[in-house]
């Protein structure tokens, strides 16, 4: 397995699409920063004009913490879409280039090969989220500095600077679990579909349906609590005034179980399927 992992790592490092993915994340961040720099204050003043007359806010509200929170919201659609496209390519590219066949003609166990791909995809996802967090932190704090965070979740929640930073860090960690779920799903879709373009469409559809189902009331409480579309926004719970740590832990553990189930299904199908 170690040899398979190092081979997968070498492929990932040598492929240009890896750097395109990191570049795309940077572009999203830069666009948010530029927009915030030129228009952020005006929008915030309009939104909070009344509140500012009654409350005192430490520092400016357009600060590094707010920028990090806005970037964090890219976890809804932009980042998972990029991740799903890149990670599904780990499998579809092998089919397209005929290397899947070449690999399967070697003394390699099918389940070990595909498991190595899942592991590398998960590591890549964690790397991307860490990269996203580190670059946002550096850029946002160096340009806008720190300050209190205002977040609208049903109601306006205010967090002091240190508390806000703490919550954002945990939100990135919880968000990473959601992203890992999406990337494992995209790899499983790639195993089923094999073709890149069709997998991208299926992955985007999965993402959209998942986001829509998040808002649907399934009436049955168990489904509303434990169905995977209801778990992908757990990172948002870090911005409620009172954090329910137990709920966050359960949700992330459940999402990891779903992730394992998708990976197991993909591995099983790949092992049973003919190549070519």
């Amino acid at each position, binding site marked *: 397995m170690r040899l398979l992992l190092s081979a997968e790592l070498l*492929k990932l490092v040598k492929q240009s699409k890896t750097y395109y993915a990191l570049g795309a994340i940077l572009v999203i961040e830069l666009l948010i920063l530029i927009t915030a720099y030129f228009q952020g204050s005006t929008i915030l003043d309009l939104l909070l004009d009344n509140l500012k007359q009654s409350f005192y806010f430490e520092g400016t509200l357009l600060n590094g913490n707010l920028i990090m929170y806005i970037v964090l919201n890219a976890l809804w659609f932009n980042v998972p879409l990029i991740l799903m496209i890149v990670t599904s390519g780990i499998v579809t590219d092998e089919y397209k*280039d*005929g290397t899947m066949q*070449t*690999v399967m003609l*070697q003394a390699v166990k099918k389940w070990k090969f595909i498991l190595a791909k899942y592991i590398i995809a998960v590591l890549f996802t964690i790397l991307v989220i860490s990269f996203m967090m580190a670059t946002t932190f550096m850029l946002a704090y160096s340009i806008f500095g720190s300050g209190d965070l205002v977040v609208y979740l049903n109601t306006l929640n205010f967090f002091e600077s240190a508390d806000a930073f703490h919550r954002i860090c945990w939100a990135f960690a919880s968000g990473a679990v959601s992203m890992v779920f999406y990337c494992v799903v995209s790899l499983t879709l790639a195993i089923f579909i094999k073709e890149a373009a069709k997998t991208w469409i299926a992955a985007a559809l999965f993402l959209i349906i998942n986001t829509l189902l998040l808002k649907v009331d399934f009436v049955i409480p168990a489904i509303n609590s434990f169905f995977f579309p209801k778990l992908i926004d757990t990172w948002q719970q870090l911005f409620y005034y009172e954090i329910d740590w137990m709920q966050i832990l359960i949700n992330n553990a459940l999402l990891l179980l779903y992730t394992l189930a998708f990976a197991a299904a993909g591995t099983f199908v790949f092992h049973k399927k*003919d*190549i070519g």
Partner: protein
Amino acid sequence: MLEGNNLSKSYSSGKALNNVSIHISPGQICGLLGRNGAGKTTLFKILCGLVKPDAGQVLVHSKRPKPVGGIIERPGLYNYLNAYDNLKIFAGIQGAPADKLSIEQILTKVGLPLDRKDPVRNFSLGMKQRLGIAIALINDPECLVLDEPFSGLDPIGVTSLIALIQNLAENENIAILLSSHMMAEISKCCHFLYVIEKGEIVNAGITNELINQHITYFSITAANLSGSPVLKPYSVEMGTNDAKVRCNAADVPALLGALLAEGVAVTACTPVLTLEELIKKAI
């Protein structure tokens, strides 16, 4: 030794293989001739273990970690990597020696330069075929399966690849099965031939015997052939510089003698055998 017994495979589009049996001994080069869509690639995929047959079994008498190596349809390579890195990856994933010396030995064995550091997407098709064979040879397989290895190669590339295949069979005692729809190329290097048509083996035999049994035309190259009275009793198709004469192989010496006696300067006499001939006769 590689053996496939009573192999059958069906897809939704129809039956791809029907009760096919094939046998390749160590050091033997076997050719599988067939038109496009005859079932060659399906048979190769089954022999390599990529596809499971509906019926029949594949027997490989080997205790090596990789009994069969091969290229199916085209060499699948990581085009963004150079030849060295490709070999390093394929050797690494199966625990075969992936050090510099071992990889350079494989590159040398297949006649690839050691100084090419650019990605293999820049390689010619012939070089890609060689690299594909190099990858297939990692971990010392006892059998090599090459699907359409001459496809897209120029004549020099074909000659050089034939030399490599012959060298592997003779010096490394590898059992080699290769497929093609090109009669000339496959008859040059194979000891034994199988002919496949519509998923069934319709003809098989030692290459020379099979060719001799089925040759009915000879191409004779000479000047002023069109007016030759010697050719009158034969069925002849006149070409620009040659005549395609229908006759038995046993009659050729007498025919050539008569032409020379008539004063026709014959410069070449080549047997003409087409794939259609082999299929038609067998059916």
